[in-house]
């Protein structure tokens, strides 16, 4: 009895910790992005709230919470209220299967440092992460605004054109790890990360992840310049904040997926496993920010061309080659 209580308590603590850490990271990723973008554009970025502007996320939250929660006239009210949640929640749900450390012994119990180690983890990740687009589409549809609708439609068709290559670029990883479980995939990279074994799959996956996170150069659903704000044009207050935070949670989660699938997860010399995991995730996030500072937004047809004519054949070819090499090596 007491043993199962301890197990439950450990799970609860683990969930709480993961939730807190991800939200904290998302909040400070916003600040980091604004700071880094500012410096890259010869500005300071936020530096008024607290030392080095470190209280900025708090100030933003207070501002967003005290703003009016506005629903446009003739909007589809329930969908409109629901949509921001979908984006944030699906992003959080994906992290459930991400292992961020090796199994540890706490209070005489073997505690795997992952919420749940599904044996079909990769399928779960693909399934849940493609649900995230419903937030964008429903938000765009329910707003009763042409800009929002265009943003939603763009989000949908963008997802169709990269999601296929996203899945296909993971097939070589699964073939090399011989498992759908994310923990097994990390364990298979103990000696050599898949980034070095299969750089093509990494490249395709990285581009698809950029598209999945709806960030520059694939932020077509938002597209401030031509669609005002795209799917979140009509949102205000904390509902906009949820979309916004969802994007950054997504960044953290996709960064950890990239780490798990290609960068060797928590494996690394000298430093403790958790530190390695964190360093890799933050490095991927920094790369995202750097890309945002450096690249223009792709045009709509360019994205389609890239997805269907380059990434898809490339990932299919990559599966063939990987399969052939694996067969040859036995």
């Amino acid at each position: 009895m007491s043993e199962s209580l301890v197990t439950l308590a450990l799970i609860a603590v683990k969930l709480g910790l993961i939730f807190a850490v991800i939200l904290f990271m998302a909040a400070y990723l916003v600040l980091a992005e604004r700071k880094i973008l500012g410096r890259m554009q010869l500005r300071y970025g936020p530096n008024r709230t607290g030392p080095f502007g470190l209280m900025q996320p708090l100030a933003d939250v207070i501002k967003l919470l005290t703003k009016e929660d506005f629903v446009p006239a003739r909007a589809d009210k329930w969908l409109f209220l629901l949509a921001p949640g979908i984006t944030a929640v699906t992003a959080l749900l994906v992290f459930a299967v991400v292992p961020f450390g090796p199994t540890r012994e706490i209070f005489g119990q073997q505690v795997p440092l992952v919420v749940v180690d599904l044996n079909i983890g990769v399928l779960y990740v693909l399934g849940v992460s493609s649900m995230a687009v419903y937030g964008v589409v429903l938000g765009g549809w329910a707003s009763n605004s042409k800009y929002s609708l265009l943003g939603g439609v763009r989000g949908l068709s963008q997802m169709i054109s990269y999601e296929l290559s996203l899945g296909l670029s993971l097939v070589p990883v699964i073939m090399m790890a011989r498992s759908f479980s994310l923990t097994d995939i990390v364990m298979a990279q103990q000696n050599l990360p898949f980034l070095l074994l299969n750089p093509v799959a990494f490249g395709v996956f990285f581009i698809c992840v950029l598209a999945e996170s709806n960030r520059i150069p694939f932020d077509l659903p938002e597209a401030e310049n031509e669609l005002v704000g795209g799917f979140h044009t009509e949102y205000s207050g904390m509902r906009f904040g949820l979309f916004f935070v969802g994007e950054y949670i997504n960044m953290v989660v996709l960064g950890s997926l990239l780490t798990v699938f290609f960068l060797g997860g928590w494996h690394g010399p000298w430093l403790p496993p958790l530190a390695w995991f964190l360093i890799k995730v933050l490095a991927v996030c920094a790369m995202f920010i750097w890309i945002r500072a450096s690249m223009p937004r792709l045009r709509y047809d360019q994205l389609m061309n890239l997805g269907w004519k380059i990434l898809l054949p490339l990932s299919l070819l990559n599966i063939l080659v990987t399969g052939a090499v694996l067969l040859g090596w036995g």
Partner: protein
Amino acid sequence: MHVVRGIRGTLQPFWVTLRNMFRKPVTVQYPEEKQQLPERYRARLILTRDPDGAERCVACHLCSAACPVDCISMQAVEAEDGRRYAAWFRINFTRCIFCGLCTEACPTLAIQVTADFELAGRDLLKLVYEKEDLLVDHCGTNSNYNFYRQSGIGVSAPRGRNPGEAPPADVKDLMP
């Protein structure tokens, strides 16, 4: 060739952003650091005095006529010797757009711009400046220009007959 250019065009921006990240930002942190404004910056308006210390303004209303937002108003009166001046002179800085057209219209160089731009405040009525707020104790630019010295007053007494006035120049004398 296209491929090479494409790759270079994709990678170059990353180098540019990275290099700029380690340069000093150009931002002037305003309340702590003050910007060095140009000499002829147009901000708060002033009413200057002539070299003798008298008001330059002759209340001709040209500035308020030139003002595109109608923020200048005044009441013209005459002194005993016929010299015109403004009984009251008011500029509403909540309306003023700092275009400087009034200074260009002014025939006596009385109204001039300064570079003092820190006019912001919470009370709008405090931004309505009266004559005593506008009048300064110096000549501004053109320190030796004195309108009445050049033109004479010439209302009650003929031009050049008032005390301290030189007779006006005889223009026909200047003919070759």
